[in-house]
């Protein structure tokens, strides 16, 4: 429990931790502690713990909170449980197996920014996770953990679940706000940032679900303990996952900064017999490929960045030598093209275009010029050139694939020339 705070309570049988069990393992002590502190001090504690957001961008959580104005008025805290990044399956586990941890974390976050309403935004496919959370919420209300007087203190909080209608873009925090408001989930222009004017025009913080699950423990055991969990500058553990042709695909809570080699070879038991590692995406579909030579890179935010990728969601996707990397990229781009919200041109029309070019390539209709075209597309959809980060994320695997697997692309490229 002290080294695996997020998953330490998980039951062997996979069922959700009950409120009784949760209490027995120190549950809601963190919230109690937070409620006894001034919200500013809660924020300070989280800043000191150097918790960085687990939603993909790694933004320091305490710092994000500090942008919320201290003025009175409605504020909202939102837990982002949209988890639609392909290859990612961490938030679901947290919801299904320890729902009270989510609620406690959300309550701490809400208290820290002075919000009296919180929403948990769950992707629509996660019906079972929703059920677990709803049950936990009902228990929490019944026990006076939520409601007009949270844990008997002079603080009111309501937490609502919202089931999304689908689409990857809904996870982007400003699109999520529009989705919750009942508008089309198109990202918003910034400034103003959500912390200043977010949901229903009020100051709002959006945090990833895993991020939120860290909060009770930081409250309870303190920043120093939290920092000691990790192997890097930033604090805490991280849920790492592996999918693809490995012996034991799965999800583990490990020290932040664990190397890819330890995760792949020890936790996941190495490649399946007859499969050889060609490359891996360190944190979901929108992260650049890394090669076997990067296996010893610690998977923390800064180290992964230094080798040209992103930690992302920390869920690794493994590519073996038998599988065609061009086809894998085609699969990825098909996803991104389908999920574009349709707001900005490069993403809406550029991604289907990318998909078409790749499809032509693998169908033997490609030409050499297509590789230049793909290279250009990476520029069209470079960060800053599109309205939000969806398309740049889509370009990450393409760009690294073109660099690392050039010969595979070349092999296809000749076919349509004649």
């Amino acid at each position, binding site marked *: 429990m002290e080294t695996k705070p997020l998953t330490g309570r998980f039951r062997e049988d996979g069922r959700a931790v009950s409120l009784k069990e949760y209490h027995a393992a120190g549950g809601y002590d963190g919230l109690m502690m937070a409620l006894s502190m001034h919200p500013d001090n809660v924020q300070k504690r989280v800043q000191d713990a150097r918790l960085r957001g687990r939603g993909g961008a790694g933004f320091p959580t305490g710092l994000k909170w500090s942008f919320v104005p201290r003025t009175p008025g409605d504020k909202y805290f939102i837990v982002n449980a949209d988890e639609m990044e392909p290859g990612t399956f961490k938030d679901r586990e947290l919801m299904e197996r320890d729902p009270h941890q989510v609620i406690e974390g959300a309550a701490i976050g809400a208290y820290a920014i002075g919000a009296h309403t919180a929403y948990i935004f769950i992707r629509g496919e996660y019906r079972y996770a929703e059920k677990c959370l709803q049950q936990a919420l009902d228990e929490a209300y019944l026990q006076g953990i939520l409601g007009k007087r949270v844990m008997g203190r002079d603080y009111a909080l309501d937490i*609502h679940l919202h089931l999304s209608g689908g689409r990857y873009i809904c996870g982007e925090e400003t699109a999520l706000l529009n989705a919750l408001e009942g508008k089309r989930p198109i990202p918003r222009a910034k400034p103003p940032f959500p912390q200043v004017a977010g949901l229903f025009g009020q100051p709002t913080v959006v945090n990833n679900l895993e991020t939120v699950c860290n909060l009770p423990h930081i409250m309870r055991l303190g920043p120093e303990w939290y920092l000691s969990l990790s192997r890097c500058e930033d604090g805490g553990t991280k849920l790492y996952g592996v999918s693809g*042709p490995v012996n034991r695909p799965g999800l583990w809570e490990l020290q932040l900064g664990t190397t890819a080699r330890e995760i792949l070879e020890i936790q996941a038991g190495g490649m399946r017999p007859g499969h050889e590692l060609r490359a891996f995406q360190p944190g979901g579909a929108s992260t650049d490929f890394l090669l076997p030579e990067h296996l010893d890179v610690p998977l923390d935010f800064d180290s992964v960045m230094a080798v040209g990728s992103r930690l992302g969601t920390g869920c690794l996707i493994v590519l073996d030598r038998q599988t065609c990397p061009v086809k894998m990229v085609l699969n990825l781009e098909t996803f991104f093209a389908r999920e574009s919200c349709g707001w900005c041109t490069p993403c809406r029309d550029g991604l289907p275009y990318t998909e078409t070019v790749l499809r032509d390539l693998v169908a033997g209709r490609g030409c050499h010029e297509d590789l230049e075209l793909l290279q250009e597309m990476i520029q069209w959809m470079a960060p800053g050139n599109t309205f939000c980060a969806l398309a740049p994320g889509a370009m990450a695997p393409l760009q690294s694939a073109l660099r690392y697997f050039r010969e595979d692309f070349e092999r296809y490229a000749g076919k349509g020339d004649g």
Partner: protein
Amino acid sequence: MSTSSLTPDEITAIRKALDTYLWPEAAAVDALYIVQQRHGWVDDAKLEAVAGVLGLSPAYLDSLATFYPLLHRKPVGRKVIRYCDSVSCWLMGSDRLAASLRERLGIGEGETTSDGAYTLLPHPCLGACHQAPVAMVADRLLTGLDPADPDTLLEEGDGN
């Protein structure tokens, strides 16, 4: 606008959803789910009825409904099979799974079997990548599927 195509229960449930939010638009997806739960999809009459309860224009509501892939604006089979076609499942053979499902059901993607039993849809990552390939039948997640064996999937899917 007539609300007669909704049951009193549905109307009550929609009104309750309204309490969760600051304004009616925000309850739109909840409301459409409520209707879809019973009928499998949302037809024009029900969409207009829901719009009436929420006080929104049907066009506004349809603008949302058509954005979201989990809301059906066309009829679907009694069971919707959503096999994951995203990267991890693809690596583990979702292509072959899809092909065997198509063959077994005799339909293409997006189509419904003639007996109205199944609709087959490709679906983005279902968040169970370590158990790939996976599919969702009705609201049930089925994992660790054998790409060559569509029947187990159909049987398990029937097990609700």
